[in-house]
């Protein structure tokens, strides 16, 4: 096709339909951040990191807290998921501007600000003389509460009932998991928290395929 030429003629109905299908598929693959992919990555990261912590504390009587190796594993798994997210979302969002970009930045800042606040609050609880067991329950359940609230609020922002439902489920997990005690709370978090994200990812992928 020559520069500036307007040879836009001779396209029949089937060709138009095929162009729409093919272009739409290609644009979606290139531009859209697929939520099931992110849910799968973060669900797996959550399950592995809290699962490793549970493995490191499950024999402790009394509870003494995760081992340095388990905490290092948690940090590396979360960092790997974060790097994947930055690369994946950055690739899809390259050249894209506007409201959705702003929404994503506000969400990211909410997560970052929330985690900083959680760590500071944990330090304050520790400083106030909380036992290792209380810190264990807090360390496992408080992040679920943060994620639950942001996901439920995202359901309102994106008018998405499935996100809202996931947020409500995680709120229930956050509220109920603490009763499992400082050891089992990590297993509950891994299975009911990370597992819920993985289930949502599978449902989302199947829905997209159908």
């Amino acid at each position: 096709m020559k520069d500036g030429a307007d040879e836009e003629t001779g396209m029949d109905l089937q060709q138009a339909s095929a162009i729409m299908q093919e272009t739409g598929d290609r644009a979606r693959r290139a531009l859209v951040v697929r939520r099931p992919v992110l849910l799968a990555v973060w669900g797996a990261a959550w399950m592995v990191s809290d699962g490793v912590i549970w493995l490191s504390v499950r024999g402790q009587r009394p509870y003494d807290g995760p081992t340095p190796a388990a905490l290092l594993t948690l940090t590396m798994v979360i960092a790997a998921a974060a790097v994947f997210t930055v690369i994946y979302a950055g690739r899809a969002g390259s050249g894209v501007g506007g409201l959705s970009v702003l929404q994503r930045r506000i969400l990211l800042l909410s997560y970052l600000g929330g985690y900083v606040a959680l760590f500071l609050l944990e330090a304050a609880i520790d400083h106030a003389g909380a036992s290792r067991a209380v810190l264990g329950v807090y360390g496992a359940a408080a992040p679920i509460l943060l994620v639950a609230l942001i996901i439920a609020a995202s359901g309102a922002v994106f008018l998405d009932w499935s996100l809202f439902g996931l947020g409500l489920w995680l709120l229930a997990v956050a509220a109920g998991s603490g009763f499992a005690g400082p050891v089992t709370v990590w297993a509950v978090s891994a299975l009911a928290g990370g597992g819920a994200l993985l289930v949502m990812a599978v449902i989302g992928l199947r829905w997209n395929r159908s």
Partner: protein
Amino acid sequence: MNIDGLDPVIHGPARLRIMVTLATLPEGDDLSFSRLQDLLSLTPGNLITHLRKLEDAGYVTTVRTGAGVTARTSVSLTRDGRAALARYTAVLRQLLDGAASQLPGSP
């Protein structure tokens, strides 16, 4: 095959691809000229020509921001453009259904 009823501004391979690509983004989002060009594998001159035609019809807007190396031209679908593509899609579907029903052996 009869293409009456299809918007002639949209009904061309390059312009249809531009419209469909921009419609993938949520309302309120825009796409840089260079990313759009990359996605559609069109030359800059060709893309400009088709964008001008779509802009004249009120279907897309292009906004240039910054200067020099930070200059960025962004393209977005207008509300009219989104509505026009929806109409185009509906008419195309009707015409295809009509053509299918006229095939020998169809009920």
